[in-house]
């Protein structure tokens, strides 16, 4: 009896683990409620939504794996919270969003978070501009960075804004060689239809 119960528990665990690790297809078209938030966008091609969450307000889409191309949606991260789940709150805390952040503070927050969370030792902010999303001003910035674990040069393009004291941001990142350019136009089309 005990043996059967144990087997049943194992089976349920395996099933739920399987479900938990399953990624899902993001079909072309309109999507709302992205990152469990008010973010909406329209994608032109297929993407995969990772079941892994890097934080409670984060959703990641990829085509070839998130180390090769990655769109991250940050859906209204509130004041006092980090943009990612902290791996080690005591020894390596992450910088926090503050409600009175200005738009130029957003790239700095991203850089500081990457340096702490991903051992990014080289980060270069390359351009910054203003865009408007549904009448709200947002910052559009491009950057490049290198993670110490693979030392691959990656490029990034992002749009972020502070709406009612919360951070909304979408980033696109991929290795500078080949991959960044491959999906850049699809990301830009998504960015054009973005709603926070």
């Amino acid at each position, binding site marked *: 009896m005990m043996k059967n119960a144990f087997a049943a528990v194992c089976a349920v665990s395996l099933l739920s683990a399987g479900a938990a690790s399953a990624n899902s297809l993001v079909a072309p078209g309109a999507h709302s409620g992205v990152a469990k938030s008010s973010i909406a966008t329209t994608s032109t091609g297929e993407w995969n939504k990772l079941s892994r969450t890097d934080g409670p307000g984060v959703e990641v889409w990829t085509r070839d794996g998130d180390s090769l191309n990655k769109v991250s949606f940050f859906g209204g991260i509130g004041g006092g919270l980090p943009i990612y789940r902290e791996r080690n709150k*005591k*020894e*390596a*805390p*992450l*910088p926090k969003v*503050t409600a*009175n*952040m*200005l*738009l*130029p*503070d957003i790239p*700095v927050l991203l*850089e*500081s*978070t990457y*340096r*702490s969370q991903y051992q990014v*030792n*080289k*980060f270069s*902010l*390359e*351009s*910054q*501009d*203003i865009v408007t999303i549904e009448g709200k*001003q947002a*910052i559009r910035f491009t950057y490049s960075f*290198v993670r*110490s674990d693979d*030392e691959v*040069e990656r490029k990034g393009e992002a749009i972020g804004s502070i709406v009612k004291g919360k951070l909304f941001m979408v980033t696109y990142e991929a290795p500078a060689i080949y991959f960044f350019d491959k999906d850049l136009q699809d990301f830009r089309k998504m960015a054009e239809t973005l709603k926070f």
Partner: protein
Amino acid sequence: MSFCRRFSAVLPGIAALALAGAAHAVEPAAPVLPTYTAAYQPQTKDERGIWMEADEDERVLRDSVLLMRDEGLNAYVRQVLCREVGEDRCRSVRLYIVEVPQFNASMAPNGTMRVWTGLLLRVQNEAELASVLGHEFAHFELRHSLAGIKARRDAASLAAWIGVLSAGAANIGTGGAGNGSTLQLAVLGNYFKFSREQETAADLLGLQYMAKSPYDPAAASQIWQSIMAEADARSVARGLKPGREYKAAFFGTHPPSPERAAYLKAEADKLGKRGELRAQEYREAIRPFLPRLLAAQIRSNDFGGSEYLLQTLSATEGWTGDLLFARGELFRQRGNPRDLVTAADLFRDAIAKGYANPEAHRELGLSLMRGGQEADGKAALREYLKLKPDANDGNVIKMLVGS
């Protein structure tokens, strides 16, 4: 062999542990330098293996995007190493400066020395830098990597056998599993003790290099005092108990820092030598790179450690524009209302001292605007745009200014 405590890097190799560690323990260095063999070649199968791996790592390192390739800086750091260990020993080293903001240096068995930029930010003078580089060279000269790999292999097989035997004992109901765990723990402990003994041996041989160099041997102890003070400042700022980063640990690969500082001081005193620190020369050599090193430190989200470093740097030559700007950034990024006031004051001080970087006006403006002082903030941002008309964030700043 790495200079600082790299516990996380060691954990994955936890299976590789040596009971034989004590038997292989390296005796403290003799008061005279060992005979040095130039162009030494690996002698055994093990040694050829680790050299081959080190050669491959060096090929990757040579192409790394994280290398700081400035010829002047590389030549200067190399010159410090050569003064410390002597020209003949120095010729066997290829030195690479790697852009990593933490405190560390390491040396591979084939003569590859890695110096992290965090070390360059933290040492106060050439003598402190020389003591760290000399310590790493001592690992190389004592061929600790080879002894380490043997110790790990001995321990790995021993730990595995203990695991097999204790599992067998548990299966036949003798209750031997607990004993097996205890034994495995003893193997672990012995391996880390072996590693700590290697560190001590390298410390002591490093002091012998210092004794023969122009540098002051007291610097070897001083660097550990600074590292502990920085760790305490970091812990306190994070609401943690001071001392947690360097307390004695069963699994510590390096001796506890207080103990290390104490025996280095005692041994340095025995040498009875007062050498040079060359603090001014060091500051001059590092000055062109200081803004870059400080920027990486400030953005590492370590308020307490960064503030300690800035205070220490200012103690030698006062609050320069570079240091005031970095400190302003530190407070602005933390971003409490009081921090924004402090940040604005620091940026104003930097500007008053003739700090020419237009970014000071930008950061001043952003601090004031975030603190609610819009008119003054906009004025500072306009000044930034005037000084840097082609700024890559010009449109963003113009939007804030309202033009």
